[in-house]
């Protein structure tokens, strides 16, 4: 890439290579990466987990975890080389000239001190001024990062702030020393969409206003497109493409960048399937035809809903008490009602804590229903006590969980995991079980040899395929997907979403799709319920919701969603 008009480069990373020697081999986390940051500029580093983007940030700050070290390349700050400085010299730079915003605002503030104490301490560490002066500066900073009522808030403890407000405090803390460079490592990943947009705007404003150079590390293409001026795309430790953000987003050259951009769910365009641009030998195979051949044909009676959810309510005990009136409850789900038609994908969206996962677990029978009724296929299934009916219901519904690292028992072999539902429901016996398990694993694209391995030998996307194989083992009619892709990288997400679309289309599966990610919902769902604080705000068909939201809350959610208009639409094929 041609250097931009260089005035005074703040940070110049040339040919950086970082290696982690391990017992078996040397792991090269960053491979000849070069990038520059100018004052007032935001340079995005984007890539999947393990691409080495956070390692670059750590290398700049001299915070590489042992035994990792820089084996080649030079990092310069305002023209002076800072790579290879000793700890003492690094400490003078770190937090003073170069500061950092971490991912989790919960752990980056000390819970035992007030916000004022933490800010004043940091300011005094960097500036030779009086306590009163420092307090005034702290107040101004709190005001500047957009925390309302700064005089009161200043004397509060971190736990009295919400997640977004806490991240604002962290940003104020990073600004205490008037740094020249800020490294923000996934600063909004732990936050809700609504808050994310505000925090990104704040970072953008501050960079311009104070002429601070920012390195923004993220896995989220939306964040990159909305916030950054320059972007470097990382793959396997290597920068594959670098340049002005709108150019890279609109006209990617490298096949990896193309595959990454094509996999981003668009809010404006419903795709038939995500394009499968294979890069780096990733598996994309999913044998839906094989699966469909042996699938029992269900006649979906379109006149009647498959599920009728009527006024379900769930309360959780907040405070225990011997007497009923001493107990305090938190109403997680408050008289929620909706129908799910056979063969449709019904989405539930909402922010964290809105009760959407609780609804899914009530339908799955994992939580009992405090009030209301759930009817499945004409039969009431909430509080089923008849064993045979309960077993039949359980065979018909299955669930795909959010976290593929906790949803598979680490001590069970993959074939036992997939066979468990078959054995429990006595669907097959003897060798037939083994054969079915191998078929299923083959069909989800893992190959029959996966049967003899343990879950830890697989990556997140592969584990989610194992989860899908387990869910399909009883040949259910209904699938509950609880944020099935929120823990996955975007290209893996595209594969899993394609699989789910295949299942719905070819097997006639009905789905309940829980997500906080509106573009994903747009791709997957026929109808959507928007939940807010345990209640349903509105239910609409997806197209209508995105075109014409009825409630203020839904409108607000949609406005905060990244538009992604800049992203290249090459290879995308809209659903007819």
């Amino acid at each position: 890439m041609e250097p931009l008009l260089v005035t005074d480069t703040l940070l110049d990373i040339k040919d950086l290579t970082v290696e982690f020697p391990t017992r078996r081999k040397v792991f090269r986390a960053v491979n000849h990466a070069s990038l520059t940051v100018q004052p007032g500029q935001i340079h995005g580093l984007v890539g999947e987990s393990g691409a080495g983007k956070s390692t670059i940030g750590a290398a700049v700050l001299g915070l590489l975890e042992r035994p990792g070290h820089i084996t080649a390349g030079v990092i310069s700050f305002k023209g002076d080389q800072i790579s290879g400085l000793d700890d003492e010299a690094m400490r003078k730079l770190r937090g003073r000239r170069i500061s950092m915003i971490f991912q989790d605002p919960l752990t980056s503030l000390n819970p035992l001190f007030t916000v004022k104490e933490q800010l004043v301490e940091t300011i005094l560490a960097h500036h030779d001024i009086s306590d009163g002066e420092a307090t005034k500066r702290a107040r101004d900073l709190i005001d500047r990062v957009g925390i309302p009522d700064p005089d009161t808030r200043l004397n509060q403890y971190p736990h009295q702030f919400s997640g977004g407000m806490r991240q604002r405090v962290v940003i104020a803390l990073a600004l205490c020393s008037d740094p020249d460079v800020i490294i923000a490592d996934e600063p909004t990943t732990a936050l809700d969409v609504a808050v994310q947009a505000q925090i990104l705007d704040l970072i953008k404003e501050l960079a311009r206003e104070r002429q601070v150079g920012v390195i923004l590390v993220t896995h989220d293409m939306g964040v990159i497109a909305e916030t950054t001026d320059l972007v470097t795309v990382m793959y396997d430790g290597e920068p594959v493409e670098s340049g002005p953000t709108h150019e890279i987003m609109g006209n990617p050259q490298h096949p990896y960048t193309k595959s990454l951009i094509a996999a981003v769910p668009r809010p404006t365009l419903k795709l038939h399937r995500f394009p499968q641009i294979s890069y780096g030998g990733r598996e994309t195979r999913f044998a839906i035809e094989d699966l469909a051949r042996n699938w029992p044909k269900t006649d979906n009676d379109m006149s009647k809903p498959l599920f009728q959810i009527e006024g379900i309510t769930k309360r959780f005990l907040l405070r225990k008490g011997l007497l009923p009136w001493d107990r305090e409850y938190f109403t997680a789900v408050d008289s929620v009602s909706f129908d799910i038609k056979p063969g449709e994908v019904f989405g539930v969206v909402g922010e964290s804590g809105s009760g959407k996962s609780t609804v899914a677990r009530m339908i799955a029978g994992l939580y009992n229903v405090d009030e209301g009724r759930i009817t499945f296929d004409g039969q009431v299934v909430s509080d089923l006590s008849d064993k045979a009916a309960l077993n039949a219901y359980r065979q018909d519904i299955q669930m795909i969980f959010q976290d593929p690292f906790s949803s598979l028992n680490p001590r069970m072999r993959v074939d036992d995991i997939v066979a468990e539902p078959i054995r429990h429901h006595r669907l097959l016996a003897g060798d037939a079980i083994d054969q079915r398990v191998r078929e299923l694993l083959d069909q989800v694209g893992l190959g029959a040899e996966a049967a003899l391995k343990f879950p830890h030998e697989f990556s997140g996307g592969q584990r989610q395929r194992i989860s899908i194989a387990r869910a399909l083992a009883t040949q259910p009619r209904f699938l509950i997907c609880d944020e099935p892709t929120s823990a996955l990288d975007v290209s893996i997400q595209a594969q899993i979403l394609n699989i789910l679309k295949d299942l719905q289309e070819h097997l006639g599966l009905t789905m309940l799709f829980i997500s906080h990610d509106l573009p994903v919902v747009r791709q997957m769902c026929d109808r959507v319920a928007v939940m807010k604080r345990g209640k349903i705000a509105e239910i609409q068909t997806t197209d209508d919701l995105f075109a014409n939201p009825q409630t203020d809350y839904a409108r607000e959610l949609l406005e905060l969603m990244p538009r992604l208009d800049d992203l290249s639409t090459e290879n995308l094929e809209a659903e007819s």
Partner: protein
Amino acid sequence: MSDVTEKPASDVAQPSRLAQMWDSDFAYAFRHSPVAIVALLVVLVLFLAALFAPWIAPHNPFDPATLNLMNGFTPPGQPNAFTQDTFLLGTDDQGRDVFSTILYGMRISLFVGISAVLLAMVIGVVLGLVAAYVGGWVETLIMRVADVQLTFPAILVAMLIFGIAKGITPPEYRNQMAIWVLIVAIALSDWVQFARVVRGAALVEKNKEYVQAARLIGRGPLPIMFRHILPNVLSPVLVISTISLALAIIAEATLSFLGVGAPPTQPSLGTLIRIGQGFLFSGEWWILFFPAITLLALALSVNLLGDWLRDALNPKLR
């Protein structure tokens, strides 16, 4: 890297299971810890010596026919003034070979220790799992009982059980019963450790999604507890049982030393120490010294092994 397809397993020569184990991080950590290697060697030598005592020991200390009272108080390594017999570690007042009594004594000590830990483990793991999974008043009850149990010193609990058992068994069975009472007594004072650790670990596992997945399939509480949760809480159990083994061996020795443990006809290391301490100040130091040093070596090396296991199995310290 995530999701990069690896070569199919069939293309790569699969190393044998033993080679895989040798190459594992666990074995690597072991090979690089001299303390662990020495401790394991000592434990192995002592275990094997105890196991094969009848073949290794030069005398059978429980067969009066082989004893010669004239051999009493022979110092270690020196010939006896009357019979000219030499004993590696000397003899006691009855002319019993100290080396042989130690080998046989260690058998009793290890048998009692291992059995007690196994029993404590079974009780503790089951109660801990049930407490964590069922919750509510069941959990409160189990953990309160455990708390109360902890307020008594282990020795006191063991002595109480020992006393009760002695009262209800007829005198002619007392000597046979003694060992079993000892095992139960030590186990009952030790299960709390297991229950607490298992409950803590199981509470974490219980909330993981794989447990929910199993419930969704329709698995009952027992299969979920024992098939799903139990295998995932076993590594802390392994660590505790090793450390408990050292404690149980010491507890057995203490009880036997106090005279409420193994009877003189089946002396354990503790009984030997009790017998030996009577001669300590009359010059026959070896009768006490060698059993005591064996007990120390056994307990210390088992303990060191347990400490190393705890560190090796704790991902946070790696």
